[in-house]
């Protein structure tokens, strides 16, 4: 064996290990998909601290709007397959535009629908302190009665009979009979690399339950009122056809 062949042998081993590594890490062919959440009032994109009017004719402004999105499933009905994104949690925050884009990789050929949860599943509510986007320091967590705040809407309205006319709706609760996480199912008609989902704040006040700001402006604990808001916000998501 001459020195050249030793060198070749040596190189060969390295090539092999690298190839193997690459083969394992590259699972099939995946492509990027972007899911964009656009918070709106009706069809108008939301601007913080602008004045809007809800279905009861109540004028209000929004100072903060945040909600968790989790358990996303992309659906391909034509090929009868789905892609579930386990343990991936996202906090959509109106004051942070980068938070409104979710980037995923899927092996689905086509996407005909998307299912997701607004809120955090009960499992993550009973497993102690989480890190990352689920860190209680994100301010979406109740420490005195364990559980995530699934969604938060804060703002002002002259209709609110409270200091600074401020309303604050912190919607949470995960136990049976208090659950405020909701599963959303939407059809995706087009087939772009981007799915744009609108979230209409007006639905918080009126859809399944009438909750005018004049009557309800505080919600800070799990219970019946929180569940009513949850029923309402479950209807706020829609995909705009002409997008």
């Amino acid at each position, binding site marked *: *064996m*001459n020195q050249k062949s*030793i060198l070749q*042998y*040596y190189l060969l*081993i*390295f090539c092999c*290990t690298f190839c193997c590594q690459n083969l394992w890490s590259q699972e099939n062919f995946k492509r990027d998909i972007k899911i964009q959440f656009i918070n709106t009032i009706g069809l108008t994109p939301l601007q913080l601290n602008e004045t809007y009017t809800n279905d009861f004719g109540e004028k209000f402004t929004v100072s903060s709007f945040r909600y968790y999105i989790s358990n996303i499933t992309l659906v391909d009905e034509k090929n009868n397959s789905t892609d579930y994104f386990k343990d991936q949690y996202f906090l959509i925050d109106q004051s942070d535009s980068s938070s409104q884009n979710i980037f995923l990789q899927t092996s689905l050929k086509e996407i005909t629908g998307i299912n997701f949860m607004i809120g955090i599943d009960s499992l993550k*509510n*009973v*497993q*102690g*302190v*989480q*890190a990352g986007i689920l*860190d*209680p*320091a994100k301010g979406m*967590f109740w*420490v*005195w*009665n*364990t559980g995530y705040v699934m969604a938060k809407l804060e703002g002002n309205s002259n209709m609110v009979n409270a200091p600074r006319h401020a309303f604050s709706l912190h919607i949470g609760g995960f136990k049976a009979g*208090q659950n405020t996480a909701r599963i959303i199912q939407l059809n995706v008609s087009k087939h772009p690399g981007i799915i744009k989902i609108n979230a209409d704040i007006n639905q918080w006040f009126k859809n399944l339950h009438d909750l005018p700001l004049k009557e309800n402006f505080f919600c800070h*604990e*799990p*219970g*019946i009122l929180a569940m009513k808001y949850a029923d309402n916000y479950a209807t706020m998501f829609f995909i705009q056809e002409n997008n």
Partner: protein
Amino acid sequence: MKKAAIILVLFSALIVAISWVNKENTFPKTHPIKFIIPKGWPEPLYDFKQNPLTEEGFELGRKLFYDGNLSKDGNFSCASCHQQFAAFATYDHALSHGFNNSFSFRNAPGLFNLAWQKDFMWDGGINHLDLQPLAPITDPHEMAENLDSILFKLKNDIVYQRMFAAAFGKKEINTQLVTKAISQFVLMLVSADSKYDRVMQGKDSFNLPQRLGYEIFQKKCISCHVPPFFTDFSFRSTGLALDDYLKDYGRMRITGNPDDSLKFRVPSLRNVQQTFPYSHDGRFGYLDAVFEHYRSGVIQSNTTDSLLKNGIPLSNFEFGQLKAFLYTLTDSSFLNNPLFAPPGVNRNAPLPDALQHADK
């Protein structure tokens, strides 16, 4: 030549193996602590797999527990309301002092045997030990701090930087690691070495009043205050009048269920001699007052526990005997264990490596 080839091949294999196995593991190894379950006790409920006990983690948790910087003004550590000599309750205080001359909402309970507890607080509102510190830390009447601010303080403290790295093997400080470290400290607070325990193990014996008190206890108290924890961890209404200032409805605050009105957790009677005043708002200053409540003060309501329909008949003699027995639940080796004292205060306490590094 062949030898050289073999050596080269082996060498390259070694390099590949090392680079695969040991990518980030540049931190020194931690020293595991074995959690000892007292004889005859059940398996703990805490999932140690998610938070393995180490000397470094324990030592970090101890430092955090005794650090006033976890509060807004630097005055209130966990230990300011959870004092070791009071079995980690607040000694002789119905309610504890908090930020800006305020009082806590409830009586601070003693901290021990937490590995066997499923949920926490008088109303059971907190479902995991790791989450527990977040409540007093952020309560405006207690430590009044916010988590971002605490993380900022810890991240900018070189001693903490080192101790977190030593305990968790990464250059990161977040809420999860802070609370895991505190859990490691409080999990080690096991109280199982009282005279009662020694008597049960046949190593000691009760004197006459203690023995008579034990008999009364077994007849009249044991169905809620179940050994070895001296609580069944349930929530019950003992027929206390509602305090019209605190307006504390107990368990109902959590469940929203009227059937839970005025129900509070059955407190452990271990170290009861040190944990006065008693009840969720500390309204009873001494044990006789508690006995008197059970004898003559129980208010009957829809939610009053069925075991207390007639209160608990007790004679004046029984007061004394019961007290004699309950005092055998005082665990002085727990109350004086230097391992649980503030770091550095007691030089006889073993100083694991992490702290020695930190001191320099």
